[in-house]
């Protein structure tokens, strides 16, 4: 080598647009690594980084880095055998992805600082396991060494999988000194249903239903991401009215969840008025979703190529009345938070993350925007109706529970305006019927991105020679953000854990899939 670095090589891909797999450069590992690290150093974020099988002894690592400046994705690959030098020591964002690669395909990222399973399932590769477990060895969730703090009066607190509230299961292990949390390690995987692998060979009649339940509170977000992937591969054009209705559904989903979260945050600091009101108001937004499609969670609405339920003038009229009335209720309920000193005293300076930490960890969505990072798929990689209707990015810079609550409140107002504007703009003509029998492009790749209410949702679909899914990767926003919860808990009171956790409100099954 003459010391001159080789230029980065990658496929520049637009989200929601297909490319042929043969156009994705397969680099030598060193060049893959250099490209990965230099792109991240230049401001790219890891949207997906995963392995797909390639014969008995090797896997192909595929990196999808998002570059908001050019609104494009850098896609590149490398082939590795039983192990490869981990990128994590040089790039914190790779941490969780490399643990996933190790668990799924039994390939060891050497030098990874904390190589543990993230979901606790058997390796997908026969006779290859990153931890030399034999086939048939029992695999129990959270049954592993945890990071330990030592010293006088240091103690450990274990919580879960079954929690006190009506929430999904997960295990949390705190290292504490008195009330002070030195370290929190989060061990998930209890919700693992193995969804990704069941999408292979599809799409079929079951695919969309499994996608709708990847994270049930994000039915619309995931269904749109999946549909856009299928539409890109099949060359289907979605009618404008369907695009607008999808946008309205996505923002209703955001309104319901953000409103519920603000209520739950109020509950976690013992402020009951906002808790009570927001609990009901969240339901009102869900009822608006049901008014459009019959399901409070938007099940059955979004389908590749279209939406299944139209909205006529009379329905839109009812929706706008309901929306206005509910929004008045939300304003009255939420504004109490900001003017109540006992609430603000608990929200401010609790669970703070710096902008630098958020960027280094690759956080997405509300959690990232609450640290001052201006990132939002609706603006950075506009899709569907967002190409025409702009939603301003809402940020705050204190990175604490207050910031995560405040960003939600700002987004509630923006989503309301968006829905209002788009209901007015909805074409009156009925939805055209779906053209039948579209085939997917064979040997192709597509990356679709949407901004769910938690943040960036990324679906990557690879097709085989017959135009069926050969590999399907889902990155839920929670996958990026769980580590943020652990970091936010450092040097906090353990009693603030519920508050910090709720301020992120991440999905367990979205992570565990």
């Amino acid at each position, binding site marked *: 080598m003459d010391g001159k670095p080789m230029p980065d090589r990658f496929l520049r891909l637009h989200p929601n647009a297909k490319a042929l797999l043969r156009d994705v450069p397969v680099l030598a590992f060193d060049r893959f690594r250099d490209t990965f690290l230099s792109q991240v150093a230049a401001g790219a974020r890891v949207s997906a980084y995963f392995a797909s099988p390639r014969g008995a002894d090797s896997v192909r690592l595929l990196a999808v880095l998002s570059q908001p400046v050019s609104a494009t994705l850098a896609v590149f690959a490398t082939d590795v055998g039983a192990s490869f030098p981990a990128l994590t020591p040089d790039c914190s964002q790779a941490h969780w992805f490399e643990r996933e690669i190790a668990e799924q395909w039994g390939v060891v990222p050497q030098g990874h600082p904390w190589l543990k399973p993230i*979901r*606790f*399932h058997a390796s997908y590769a026969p006779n290859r396991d990153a931890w030399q477990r034999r086939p048939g060895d029992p695999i*129990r969730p959270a049954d592993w060494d945890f990071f330990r703090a030592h010293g006088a009066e240091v103690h450990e607190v274990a919580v879960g*999988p*079954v929690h*006190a509230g*009506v*929430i*999904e*299961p997960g295990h949390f292990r705190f290292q504490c000194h008195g009330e002070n949390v030195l370290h929190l390690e989060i061990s998930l*995987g*209890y*919700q*693992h*249903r*193995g*969804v990704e692998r*069941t999408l292979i060979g599809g799409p079929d*009649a*079951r695919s*969309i*239903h*499994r996608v709708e*339940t*990847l994270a*049930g*509170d994000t039915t619309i977000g995931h269904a749109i991401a999946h549909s856009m992937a299928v539409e890109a591969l099949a060359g289907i054009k979605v009618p404008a009215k369907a695009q607008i209705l999808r946008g309205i559904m996505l923002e209703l989903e955001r309104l319901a969840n953000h409103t*519920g979260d603000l209520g739950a945050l109020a509950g976690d600091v013992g402020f009951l*008025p906002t808790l*009570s*009101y927001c*609990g*009901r108001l*969240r*339901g009102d937004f869900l*009822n608006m979703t*049901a*008014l*459009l*499609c*019959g*399901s*409070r*969670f938007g*099940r*059955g609405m979004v389908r590749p190529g279209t939406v*299944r*339920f139209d909205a006529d003038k009379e329905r839109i009229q009812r929706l706008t009345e309901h929306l206005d009335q509910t929004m*008045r*209720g939300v304003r*009255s*309920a939420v*504004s*109490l938070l900001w*003017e109540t000193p006992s609430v603000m005293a608990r929200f401010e300076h609790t669970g703070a993350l710096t902008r630098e930490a958020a960027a280094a960890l690759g956080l997405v969505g509300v959690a990232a925007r609450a640290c001052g990072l201006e990132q939002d798929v609706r603006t950075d990689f506009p899709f569907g109706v967002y190409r025409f209707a702009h939603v301003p990015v809402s940020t705050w810079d204190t990175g604490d529970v207050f910031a995560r609550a405040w960003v939600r409140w700002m987004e509630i107002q923006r989503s309301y305006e968006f829905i209002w504007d788009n209901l007015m703009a909805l074409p009156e003509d009925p939805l055209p019927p779906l053209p039948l029998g579209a085939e997917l492009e064979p040997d192709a790749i597509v990356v679709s991105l949407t901004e769910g209410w938690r943040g960036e949702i990324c679906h990557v679909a690879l097709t085989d020679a017959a135009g069926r899914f050969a590999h399907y990767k889902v990155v839920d926003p929670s996958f990026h953000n769980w580590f943020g919860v652990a970091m936010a808990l450092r040097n906090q009171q353990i009693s603030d854990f519920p508050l910090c956790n709720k301020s992120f409100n991440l*999905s*367990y*099954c979205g992570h*565990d899939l």
Partner: protein
Amino acid sequence: MLNVLKARWHQGYRTIPYPRAAPSLPDRFRGVPQVRFSLCPDGCRACMDACPTGAVGTDDHGKRRIDLGRCLFCGECSAACPAEAIVFTTDHQLAVRERRDLCLHEGGVLKRAAALEKKMLRLFGRSLKFRQVSAGGCNACEADINVLTTIGFDLGRFGIQIVASPRHADGLLVTGPVTRNMALALQKTYAAVPAPCLVVAVGACAISGGPYAGLPDQNNGVPPAIPVDLYIPGCPPHPITILDGFLRLLNKIA
């Protein structure tokens, strides 16, 4: 403080009058289906092909049926049908006591959940505490159980409460297909509830595995070792459907 009172006044009284008055459900809500397979054109299997979970199919005797325990209430069968053989009504009263009661045949009428036996009613009729266990649930069933505790439904007025510990509970609300990684935790939670333990399976996943039925990482719902007292179908069931099931169990709706 004045603003808190002002907001209280503005928010008003919001608890629904159910079960005194019928709930208001949207026209597109998909509840109990009306099944008339006698209308099926010869050889037509459009509904069966459209069904993602095999809920529409044939039983052991070769008779066509819809199994609401597997049904996601997506309405794809109804949309695919050329003859209105399956029509979803807005009837929300879906809960039953026996698994087999969820199968609807030609002209079938759903056998709604009967009340608990006298002895159990004496124990639980005025105070029933549940512990919820999510075992692979996608957070939709969980969310619509949670909604019951809000002021809109106010579960507490019926003497029903969701509690933090199985030791304080009279029964379990199970959601999810019971993932392999949650099977042990579910079993332990069940064992921790003092007998007799009422078990309610909420949602298609807990009843049959739902969209995940047959996959290796899950258990097709609540295992036989944990006998179920009440089945509440849906994906997810509407909160009013869940409430209706509880109230039938406690003999508060006849």
